């Protein structure tokens, strides 16, 4: 198992190198540059040259890339071209916010999806099943920017409720934090709930058909034991895979939702970085998100071994 984890972590290196080169190339190709953004209308060739020299943009592209990556491997992601603030601490503080949002969204999704998915599989083709399936399909199909905007408008117009404007951390002010985070978590969670519910239902139906479920019933098992101890545990593997992938992408921030709810998360930071052509910010964010994604997936793979004894990596 330890060897397996080490091997997986080593595999991260080529992944990250590939991503960093891709991001570097794309950042060069998009029109506009950071210096024009900084100088605005006051730019003169002299000022321009001074800034380019200051940011290291006067050097050849290959050298620019290697000087960045050389520092990055030591954990120094450089400073923002725009604000001069170091990128890494900023990523970390924003990651905490995105991670909190991701965890909340997952909890909401599970609370909705798992019981309904199980119920739906047990009452297959009943009225309950049909209703649950339609609602799940709606959850998956309604774009989250639409449901988010509608939710904000609904609360504002209908109940005259507005979420606090100034963000507060989870441990600074729990009440304010929850008021800010619950709505976007609900929006993200409901989309997730739709797909998790559908996966739970189909996975449960698949397992309930298995011989061993009939054999468990033939032993005289109460329904509760058959369903939860045997059927649900066996059907959880695809669910864990799906949830792992979703958490992985949520952790990296959700640009649209963070934008709509003005949450200073990783997604918002990345978006700002891109629009300002702020190369160290974009590169840092993208690599960080990639690492998180790979680590979450590794965690999921390790989790499999606890659920299913047939899976082992040694």
């Amino acid at each position, binding site marked *: 198992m330890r060897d397996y984890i080490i091997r997986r972590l080593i595999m991260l290196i080529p992944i990250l190198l590939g991503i960093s080169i891709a991001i570097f190339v794309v950042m060069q190709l998009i029109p506009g540059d950071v210096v024009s953004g900084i100088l605005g209308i006051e730019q003169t060739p002299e000022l321009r040259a001074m800034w380019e020299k200051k940011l290291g943009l006067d050097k050849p592209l290959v050298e620019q890339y290697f000087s960045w990556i050389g520092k990055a491997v030591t954990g120094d992601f450089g400073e923002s071209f725009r604000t001069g603030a170091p990128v890494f601490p900023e990523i970390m503080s924003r990651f905490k916010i995105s991670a909190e949002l991701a965890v909340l969204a997952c909890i909401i999704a599970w609370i909705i999806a798992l019981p309904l998915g199980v119920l739906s599989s047990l009452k297959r083709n009943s009225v309950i099943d049909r209703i649950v399936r339609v609602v799940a399909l709606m959850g998956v199909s309604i774009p989250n920017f639409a449901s988010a905007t509608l939710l904000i408008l609904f609360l504002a117009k209908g109940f005259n409720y507005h979420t606090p404007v100034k963000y507060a951390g989870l441990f600074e002010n729990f009440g304010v934090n929850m008021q800010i985070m619950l709505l976007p978590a609900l929006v993200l969670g409901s989309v997730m709930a739709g797909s998790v519910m559908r996966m739970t239902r189909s996975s449960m139906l698949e397992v309930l058909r298995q011989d*061993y479920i*009939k054999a468990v019933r033939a032993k005289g098992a109460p329904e509760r034991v058959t369903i939860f101890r045997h059927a649900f545990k066996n059907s959880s593997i695809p669910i864990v895979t799906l949830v792992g992938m979703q958490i992985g992408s949520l952790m990296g921030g959700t640009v649209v939702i963070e934008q709509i709810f003005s949450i200073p998360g990783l997604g918002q930071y990345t978006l700002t970085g891109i629009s300002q052509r702020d190369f160290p910010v974009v590169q840092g964010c993208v690599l960080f998100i990639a690492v998180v994604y790979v680590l979450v997936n590794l965690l999921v793979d390790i989790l499999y071994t606890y659920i299913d004894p047939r899976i082992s990596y040694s």
Partner: protein
Amino acid sequence: MKDLLEIRNLKITTLRGKETVRLLDYVDLNIPKKCSFGIVGESGCGKSITANAVLGLLPYPLRVSEGSIRYDSRDGEKELLRLNKKEMQAVRGGEISMIFQEPMTSLDPIFTVEKQMAEAVSFHHPNAGRGEIRERSLEMLKKVNIPRPEQTLASYPHQLSGGQLQRIMIAIALINNPRLLLADEPTTALDVTIQAQILKLMNDLKEQNDTSIVMITHDLGVIAETCEEVAVFYAGQIVEQANVVELFSHTAHPYTQGLLRAVTSLGGATRKLYTIPGIVPPGGQWLSGCRFADRCSRCTERCRQEMPALKEVSPRHLCRCFQNSGEVDA
């Protein structure tokens, strides 16, 4: 009640789209106490669903639409079709156990053998202690000739062979001393050498524990080796039923005769293998007369018009054929 299990007029149907389709048609069966009873027939003839119906394990959308299944339990006579969930759970695995065709998929892959054996005990004896259950499990594994019981208890199903798994299934089925064991093709998925061992084991355990066995199979060899009474199923009906010696020596129904001729034997290796022409008609596509008419070499016009009744051709030997009840010649 004289017998252990009495099935009367059992009718099982399923849904195909919106249409109700019959799978089993008014079957009567009596399973005596301390008897091994064979049910033989091709796939789709209704033998497995009969056993599943006894324990209320019919998969959706199959259901019993008519009939009664009376069982002489330890605490009095019970109508199994009218039991509530709790009462049925007490019967399953406690009074009546079942083993299945595919041992490889009949144990839950994510639990150890020990957990799955312990579960079988604790469903019926919720107060049994851990040590007590473990001892009982080890004892059962020894009874079914598992070579290293301790090690086997700690194993997961994927670490064991099909033969071992079927032994474990038998051990689980018998761990609460049931009075009836429904064995649904218990040897079909196993190697021939293992088949014989499993059959012998089941016979031995039946003798030791006074358990009745219902052996469901498509293999007449298995029947000949293990059973005392036999019912031959065809297209959702019983077509012939008799004592095993009587059935093999005075085979009455053309279908049973066909089955017997189709049995391969070493002596007959030189001749061409016999097959009954045609296939078993699936549920819902049965003929209105004798259901075997299309495949029968002795079929007459009457056979196509009218369904023969199950009649006694000699004492305790029932057959569903006009030709053997003297009606054709008369």
